[in-house]
């Protein structure tokens, strides 16, 4: 009887130890799966929310700080109006990672910046190309932090004639604008490896109806 009771006690003890060990292992694996992520804000007035790639919210990050995330793919979106709310994806691998947060400005902010620089850019274009009076500067766009500018130069035409459309890209460096892709019908990504693809792809799109209309009206 006593032996039977001993056996039962031993079995329960072993079971408890086993459960604790297994639980401990799971706990350790779970703990080790988290990595320290150094979130470094490269812009002022910025706050972000981080989501897992399945859209599950993981953390609100109001300033540069260290957070714990598991390995995997995440994205963040700025929560302040000054920045574009586009998703920016990043991946956490096995090592501790530093994520630099430098999202593009919001459309409204870029629009304000563009209005401040339009006169300067137009002066550069008209002083660089004597035939600019034959073209309407249209579809002007600033990108990222306002350091890239693109426009379509629409030939002024009359009647039912179709205009030629030229694309031009400028870059702002040290507060100075410079033409980096001179006007041409198409800008090839291969020819301009230093210009972000998204700028070239955007300017190579079809001109807006408004732009085409302006080439006839003026």
């Amino acid at each position: 009887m006593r032996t039977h009771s001993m056996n039962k006690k031993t079995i329960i003890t072993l079971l408890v130890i086993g459960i604790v060990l297994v639980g401990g292992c799971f706990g350790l694996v779970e703990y080790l799966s988290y990595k320290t992520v150094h979130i470094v804000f490269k812009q002022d007035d910025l706050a972000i929310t981080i989501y897992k790639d399945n859209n599950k919210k993981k953390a609100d990050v109001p300033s540069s700080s260290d957070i714990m995330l598991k390995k995997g793919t995440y994205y963040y979106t700025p929560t302040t109006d000054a920045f574009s709310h586009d998703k920016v994806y990043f991946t956490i691998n096995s090592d501790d990672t530093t994520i630099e947060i430098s999202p593009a400005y919001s459309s409204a902010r870029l629009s304000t910046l563009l209005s401040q620089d339009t006169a300067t850019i137009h002066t550069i274009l008209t002083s660089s190309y004597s035939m600019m009076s034959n073209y309407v500067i249209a579809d002007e766009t600033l990108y990222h932090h306002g350091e890239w500018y693109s426009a379509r130069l629409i030939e002024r035409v009359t009647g039912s004639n179709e205009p030629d459309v030229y694309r031009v890209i400028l870059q702002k460096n040290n507060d100075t604008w410079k033409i980096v892709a001179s006007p041409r019908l198409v800008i090839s990504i291969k020819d301009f490896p230093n210009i972000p693809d998204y700028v070239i792809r955007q300017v190579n799109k079809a001109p807006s109806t408004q732009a085409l209309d302006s080439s006839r009206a003026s």
Partner: protein
Amino acid sequence: MNRSVKLFLVGLGLFIVLPLALWGIISLLSLNHTGKVSVDITVVPSDATIQVDNTSFTNKKSVYLKPGDYSVTVSKDGFESTTQEITVSEDTTAHIIAALYPVSSDATAWYNEHQDDYYELEGIAGTAANETGQEFINRYPITGSLPIQKATYLIGYKKTDDQKNIIITITAYEGYRESALQEIRNLGFDPSNYTIEFNNYENPFNE
């Protein structure tokens, strides 16, 4: 030596030494072809001499060459030699296909007796051309939709001088160049990805 030892040695030979020897031979063969691509050879007459750059050989069905451009000359006494340029790359199939035509009376007699060989080669050449054309379209999908000819523009393509890429060519009436670009967009291709040349056109901004 007793019987069991003999059996053991035979077993050792069959199950260990033989596979090892085979593995060694296969490794040696594959070592020679490392980084090379198989190029099929079909020539008529089949015993013609094939010279690839500075190396000559005869009676081979294929040859392994490193990716690159080669000048291939196929020749045989009594037949007119032919030279062709081939490009060998890892993602396309290269062929050496050549039919030599007679220039001597003996060769003409041979030619008359082997007409079937020439017909067969024509079939192989046609198949190879189709394969090459399909590979080219797979590599540059836009070429599958070109040329496009409309009343106001013509969109085509040509290979770059090094034969490694393509240039889209547009010939358009003034004012219809944007329409040609729109045609490319409508096909689902982004003009940004291509080098595009406009024929009979001068950029007014190139002062």
